């Protein structure tokens, strides 16, 4: 008993150097000082080196005229725009391909992940083969596969495939008519908004009624009728104000209409299919993580298999799925920088061109790093909010 007390009290009575609290603070301070000194040394070295080599530095170049053109321009951009504008175009292109890729990868991933647990032998095996093939190939090869596939298989512009609704498919991309909204078309959008609002209201009322009385209401069909029917009605009432700009043959390419280039298509497809194989495994793990007793209990209550999946299994699986899903979304966004290999003008490609035209290597790389960091942090933050809402609420 006595000896134990001695051991417990020794640290506080011992010399100053042996105090674990003081030691802790001391070593933390050392680490911080070394870190700050290291960073300062690197920055100092870079500045000194740039000056010694007579290389201009600073971010002033962002306001200069870029002078080069960009193939895919989601916002107004010409060669007269600034380097800063060019980088923003690149950023938007990255966000477009990452956003579209995330949505598609999630859909394919959920379908394949659930398919791997199907009772149907064929579906199960097809999904397994899909996952094993795409998961085990480097993403760059998948991108090249789609890109060379697109270029090799599709015909030249003169012999384009004619698709329905005045669309065309050729080596230069997918062309479809561009909608031109005429006078009075605002009515259609208002009708669409009203339709969505009414559908939401119907869903809520139906849910409350089911809670209260147990009676069900065909929410899906009613909502569909409201969301599609109302705008159509408005379209007819306002005198059919919509016209289309169809793509037409010219000397070199198809002109007019709306064009999606093969670079975007192959990058988007490759990222979606590649990431979907990982998401499928995450979804499968999530579903298997829900105890079998839950399914059996739901079955015992008389729920149909579809309802069991939708109401019992998936909500619980989501709690397991969301954290690793966030990592996959971040991976997809970062993998989009592989676009440079096939010439899709994403952030890396454009910042690289700017870096080369201006010679501002340090600044260019810094901009890229900071922007990707911000994109990743925002994605994480959004997914954390989703995760918090999905988390188990103790009652």
């Amino acid at each position: 008993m006595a000896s134990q007390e001695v051991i417990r009290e020794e640290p506080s009575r011992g010399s100053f150097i042996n105090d674990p609290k003081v030691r802790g603070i001391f070593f933390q301070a050392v680490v911080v000082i070394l870190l700050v000194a290291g960073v300062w040394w690197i920055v100092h070295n870079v500045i000194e080196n740039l000056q010694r080599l007579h290389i201009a530095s600073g971010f002033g170049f962002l306001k200069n005229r870029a002078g080069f053109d960009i193939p895919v321009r989601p916002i107004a951009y010409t060669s007269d725009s600034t380097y800063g504008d060019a980088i923003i175009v690149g950023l938007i292109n990255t966000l477009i391909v990452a956003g579209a890729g995330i949505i598609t990868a999630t859909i394919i991933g959920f379908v394949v992940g659930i398919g791997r647990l199907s009772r149907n032998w064929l579906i199960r095996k097809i999904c397994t083969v899909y996952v094993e093939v795409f998961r085990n190939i480097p993403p760059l090869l998948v991108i090249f596969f789609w890109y060379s596939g697109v270029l090799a298989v599709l015909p030249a512009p003169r012999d384009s495939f004619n698709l329905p609704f005045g669309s065309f498919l050729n080596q230069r991309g997918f062309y479809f008519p561009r909608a031109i909204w005429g006078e009075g078309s605002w009515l259609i959008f208002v009708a669409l908004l009203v339709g969505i609002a009414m559908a939401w209201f119907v869903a809520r009322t139906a849910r409350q009624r089911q809670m209260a009385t147990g009676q069900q209401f065909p929410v899906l069909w009613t909502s569909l009728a409201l969301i599609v029917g109302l705008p159509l009605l408005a379209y007819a009432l306002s005198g059919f104000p919509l016209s289309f700009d169809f793509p037409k043959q010219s000397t070199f390419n198809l002109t007019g209409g709306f064009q999606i280039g093969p670079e975007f298509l192959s990058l988007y497809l490759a990222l979606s299919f590649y990431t979907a194989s990982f998401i499928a495994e995450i979804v499968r793990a999530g579903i298997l993580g829900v105890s079998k007793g839950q399914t059996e209990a739901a079955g015992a209550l008389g729920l149909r298999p579809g309802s069991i999946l939708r109401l019992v299994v998936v909500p619980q699986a989501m709690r397991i799925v969301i954290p690793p899903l966030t990592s996959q979304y971040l991976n997809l966004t970062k993998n989009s920088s592989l676009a440079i290999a096939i010439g899709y003008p994403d952030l890396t490609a454009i910042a690289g061109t700017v870096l080369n035209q201006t010679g501002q290597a340090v600044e260019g790389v810094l901009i890229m790093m900071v922007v990707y960091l911000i994109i990743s942090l925002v994605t994480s933050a959004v997914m954390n909010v989703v995760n918090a809402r999905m988390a188990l609420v103790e009652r």
Partner: protein
Amino acid sequence: MKHIAIGILGAAALGWMASAASATTLGDVKAKGFIQCGVSTGLAGFSAPDDKGDWKGIDADFCRAVAAAVFGDGTKVKFTPLSAKERFTALQSGEIDILSRNTTWTINRDTALGLNFIGVTYYDGQGFMINAKKLPGVNSALQLSGAAVCVQSGTTTELNLADYFKANKMEYNPVVFEKLEEVNAAYDAGRCDVYTTDQSGLYGIRLTLSAPADHVVLPEIISKEPLGPAVRQGDDQWYHIVKWTYFALLQAEELGITQANVEELKTSDNPEIKRVLGQEAETKIGTDLGVSNDWVVNIVKAVGNYGEMFERNVGTGSPLKIARGINALWTKGGLQYAPPIR
């Protein structure tokens, strides 16, 4: 603790500055025993590996000429293939000693990028190439409105292209890749209608396409593209060695000194030839430059004179068959002119 950290830091900074002050490129090159030469990733006639992996072309030979001047041995060169995007950073950071990579001399590169161009080893201009079989009837660049144009990113070519189409009020769709091979593959696959780069490059690239005979280079030249080697700023001695290697190549051609006759001409009666070849009594031309006095002999033995280098790599002795044109010596109506070696 803080004092120690600052002490360590100060010592490190001082050490670094000391090394920066003492090292010269010539000293570094001699210490490692070879010249690190930045070349393209493969442009026929300028710098491209042959079937044995040896780098061939004017740009590669120029680095051999500098190695011959410094070491008396043209083989003491190591080549670093660089994309357009990597080239300046590689030179700035000291990864390479000479950038000899069909690079256009511009004021911005000379000033803001911290480079020094040593001269123009090839006067070029930007042109367009099309597939004449797929596009019959197109025989001028002014008919290219609406075309998809393949171009390498981060080049002056990319900027000239934008300027040319804007000035002529024409539309185009740029198809931009980072690496030359990617541009070649995309053009060959029909992703774009037009290929634009320096005209000499177009002739070289045409040879690598699947059906070279189908492609024609349009007559328009839309820009001045003086291509030449560059070195880092801040080392005048190295700058002079590289620059005078280039002038020595021109001077040798002007005086009729060739790979075949350089040994005989050492005993020539012509005082100018004797002076250039370092055979003058008590000569200090070579040693003042920082190399041996028979540096020009070594250069010509290694790669020949400028004319021989040209004909072997891009002229009549090569598949490219490019005429000398404005790259002829000034005595033959061209632009190649060297200040006197004396």
